[in-house]
């Protein structure tokens, strides 16, 4: 027994060792250990981010150099702190605390002392920098905006966060990525691919040469430039008109679905989110909870569409044979729902499709809506048909445009009303408000514009989008180039379009005609409510306008939604009219109109609910 004991121990130890080694080298081994290897430093070579141009080739976004003052704490020699701080334009406390922070992070590695100096500051600093040992200046690239508008569409870039790092291994801490808008949507195109050099290090973090003679290294791949469908001039002009107004303006080229302008008011200068003041500016914008400049109303504000929605109800009624263009309905300065009378501003009298549209007669469309429902044995069946038609205009769904945020809006369906009223406990009368675009239906400005484009095209639309070219090449994404047909026959569009044209000729927007351009439009004046201290309070009506022009072969379809702007023909109508003229003519002939729009703001109106006092609504502003 004593003879074999030693041999057994030797064998046992051998087996234990091999077991442990196989655990370490076979089971714990991770194949991408080159990423974790402390002996290999990865040095990235960042390609320049792609530029962004507008539809006419005008530069929107480019890059600018910025300069970070870096410090390696271990190499800092005693210095004239005061002189240095003056040079950098920071106070001494900040300098001391930043230096301490850097030392805690690592005495040996560089840390940012002062981030993102401007070119001017850099020029001043550059020559004097040598006097201060342990400090140096590192160049990096920031976005440069050749416009002060379009912040909501273009989006901004910011440093990647932990979540990005976990989800996407191609990002490294401290890198920038598109966070909103086009910058986010087309991140992979704009970004390009960073090059990487592997450097062999020793345990003191000193470089001791390339790893594997650089065979694993890659070259950076340039980011591609992008051309967007936005018209820079139109976008800038629209934002100027929107000064002091809350709301969204969306202009679309009906023939292609290209978004010409996507305006959210109020907005901000995109350059605010670049450079040293970035976080300060961002907090300011982010915490402005009244005007919410970072909230893109053009695609996120889901509200009642108001009267423009009447055109769709008319189309559904025509399609379902509930009315013909000649069908007349009498308006008693309003209409009755049961015993309750609902008002109408059209002046009363007998209305047909044409006058119903251009005078925006509530009674006519309430009647039309009832007629649709009378076509079907049950309200639920009628609702299904109605819902199908409405959804074919891109309402009630995310449209599928190429921006990273959105709202589906709401087209109510039978389940929705069954939930509220109970099965078979509701009828066309219950939901009659939807006939005039109030009630439960909700749309976003971009949906309104898209719906208008579908009417302009007499029955089809192209998914709205902002991408036009990548690297100078026209895109061919079937999602954007294939027409989406509505469920309404083409022939029914002409009388509706005709009625919309009359809106300008003798209807609610007759004063907004542009000489030489035949426009079709529809006003909307939308009742809206808010809660003030828990009490439902009515606010001044939202001013809504949709239009397309020219009536035949339309070049632009536009939706304007101005919160608390009162009549549709006022703010929204004016802005739509000016935008169309600007886009089609390139200049404004009605200077007085333009002047009024540039000067009038609604700030007072927006301050009312926050005043704490009782206030009047729907006052005449001019």
């Amino acid at each position: 027994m004593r003879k074999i004991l030693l041999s057994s121990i030797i064998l046992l130890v051998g087996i234990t060792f091999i077991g442990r080694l196989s655990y370490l080298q076979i089971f714990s081994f991770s194949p991408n250990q080159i990423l974790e290897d402390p002996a290999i430093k990865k040095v990235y070579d960042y390609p320049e981010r792609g530029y962004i141009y507008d539809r006419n080739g005008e530069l929107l976004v480019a890059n600018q150099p910025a300069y970070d003052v870096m410090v390696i704490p271990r190499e800092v020699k005693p210095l004239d702190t005061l002189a240095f701080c003056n040079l950098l334009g920071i106070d001494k406390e900040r300098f001391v605390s930043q230096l301490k922070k850097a030392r805690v992070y690592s005495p040996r590695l560089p840390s940012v002392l002062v981030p993102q100096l401007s070119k001017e500051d850099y020029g001043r600093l550059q020559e004097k920098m040598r006097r201060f040992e342990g400090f140096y200046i590192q160049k990096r690239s920031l976005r440069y905006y050749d416009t002060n508008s379009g912040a909501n569409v273009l989006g901004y870039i910011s440093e990647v966060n932990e979540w990005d790092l976990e989800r996407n291994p191609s990002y490294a801490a401290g890198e920038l990525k598109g966070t909103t808008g086009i910058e986010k949507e087309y991140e992979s195109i704009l970004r390009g691919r960073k090059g990487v050099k592997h450097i062999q290090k020793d345990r003191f973090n000193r470089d001791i040469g390339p790893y594997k003679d650089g065979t694993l290294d890659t070259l950076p791949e340039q980011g591609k430039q992008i051309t967007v469908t936005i018209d820079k001039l139109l976008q800038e002009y629209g934002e100027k008109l929107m000064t002091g107004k809350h709301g969204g303006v969306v202009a679309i080229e009906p023939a292609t679905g290209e978004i010409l302008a996507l305006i959210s008011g109020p907005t901000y200068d995109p350059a605010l989110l670049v450079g040293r003041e970035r976080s300060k500016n961002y907090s300011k914008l982010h915490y402005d909870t009244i005007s919410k400049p970072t909230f893109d109303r053009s695609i996120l504000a889901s509200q009642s569409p108001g009267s423009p929605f009447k055109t769709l109800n008319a189309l559904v009624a025509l399609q379902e044979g509930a009315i013909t263009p000649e069908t007349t309905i009498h308006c008693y300065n309003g209409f009755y729902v049961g015993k309750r009378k609902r008002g109408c501003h059209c002046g009363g009298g007998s209305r047909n499709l044409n006058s119903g549209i251009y005078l925006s007669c509530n009674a006519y469309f309430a009647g039309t809506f009832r007629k649709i429902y009378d076509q079907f044995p049950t309200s639920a069946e009628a609702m299904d048909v109605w819902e199908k038609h409405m959804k074919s205009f891109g309402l009630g769904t995310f449209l599928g445009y190429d921006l990273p945020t959105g709202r589906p809006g709401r087209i109510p369906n039978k389940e929705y009303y069954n939930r509220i009223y109970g099965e078979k406990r509701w009828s066309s009368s219950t939901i009659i408000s939807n006939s005039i675009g109030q009630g439960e239906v909700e749309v976003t400005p971009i949906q309104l514009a898209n719906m208008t484009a579908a009417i302009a095209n007499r029955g089809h639309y192209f998914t709205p989008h902002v991408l036009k070219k990548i690297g100078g090449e026209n895109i061919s994404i079937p999602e954007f180039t294939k027409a989406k047909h509505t469920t309404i026959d083409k022939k029914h569009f002409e009388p509706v379009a005709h009625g919309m044209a009359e809106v300008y000729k003798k209807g609610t927007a007759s004063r907004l005609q542009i000489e030489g351009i035949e426009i079709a439009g529809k006003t909307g004046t939308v009742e809206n409510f808010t809660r003030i201290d828990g009490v439902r309070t009515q606010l001044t009506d939202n001013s809504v306008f949709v239009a397309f022009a020219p009536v035949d072969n339309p070049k632009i379809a536009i939706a304007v939604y101005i919160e608390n702007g009162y009549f549709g023909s006022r703010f929204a109508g004016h802005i739509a009219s000016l935008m169309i003229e600007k886009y089609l003519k390139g200049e404004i002939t009605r200077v007085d109109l333009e002047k009024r729009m540039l000067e009038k703001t609604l700030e007072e109106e927006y301050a009312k609910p926050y005043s704490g006092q009782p206030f009047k609504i729907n006052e005449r502003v001019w």
Partner: protein
Amino acid sequence: MSVSGKSVLKRLDWFSVLIYISLVFIGWINIYSSTFTEDNPSIFNFASLHGKQLFFIGTSAVAIIIILALEANFYERFSSLFYIISLALLLGLFVFGKTIAGATSWYDLGFFNLQPSEFAKVATALALAKYLSDIQTDIKRQKDQMVSILIILIPAFLIIPQPDPGSALVFFALIFVIFREGLPLYYLSIGVMVILIFILTLMFGTIWVAIILGLLLALFLLLKKPSFKVPVIPVTLIYVAVVLFSLSVNFVYNSVFEQRHRDRFGLWLRLEKDPKKLEEIRKTIGYNTYQSEKAIESGGKYGKGFLEGTRTKGDFVPEQHTDYIFSTVGEEWGFIGTATVVILFTLMLLRLVHLAERQKNAFSRMYGYGVISILFIHYFINIGMVIGVLPTIGIPLPFFSYGGSGLLFFTALLFIFLKLDANRLNELT
């Protein structure tokens, strides 16, 4: 010379020699890799460590020739003298020793630093074999047991204050030799028990050790044959002794051990339960082991290739060419490499056991066991430490680690035995 050189070569155990050559060769390749720099690639540059090691290999080759050429009974005859010389050298260190890295373990011979503790290993193995094989010695006698243990302990206690507890520990492995020759089993059992209780106390505390031991006793009393009479008083005494020892463990651990020892044990036994803190300790106090484990792990199945070990190049593993040389094997040659080395050591040790057992001469057999014990303890503790299954104890890997004295005396240790083995047939005549 009673045996011609030719017949020595013929009777030499070439299997062991072959493994020896393989280990020295693989070791040198890895020393070359771990000390390699781009600007100093030459093999024969004696300013570089791998160049020096090559010189030591040459010296060892000369030593082998001399050892094989000398008469076999030379070693037995002069073993006492060697032992006394080695003790004298160890004592002399207190006066003339050269301090390297905090340990006064070397004589400065100008071109070469001699580490007498390496020599003492050979001498003690010889002296122990000589004493035990003496016709007058009876290992069943307590006095002889004590003397033989003393032969081991004296050099160990001379080495401890250098301080070099790692090398001192090696001498305790020679207990195996005495054990093989008939030292009663309870010595070993007590040793194992002491180690076990020590570890268990650290991990679970005295109270749990007492409770578990009590439960085991109760279980034994329940299951025992009714006819078996329990010696109540001795069992109680042993139980009390164990509990007292367990109590003393805490005292020794907290008051006698230094912080670095506590850290090593704490890390080894995972006494820190918070995984975050444990990771922190691994990266600071357990830095060496952490880095060597990571280096080995990063080698994977097939390794990164010769001179391609990034962590080796970056010098991430401290003392990589000496005590941690095995991590280079792990990183550059992968599991294939490490398994090969473990198998080579295992084969060599088993072969030596076989050789020792076939000796007719008691001295040769006992010396053989001495060689095996010393080689085994080095191999066991070194690789165990490098792959993180044993606490950090700094002793080199035989034939592998960089170091002249080490290589020379490990070679001498092995080849004296191979010479004795080659000569075994002459013993009969």
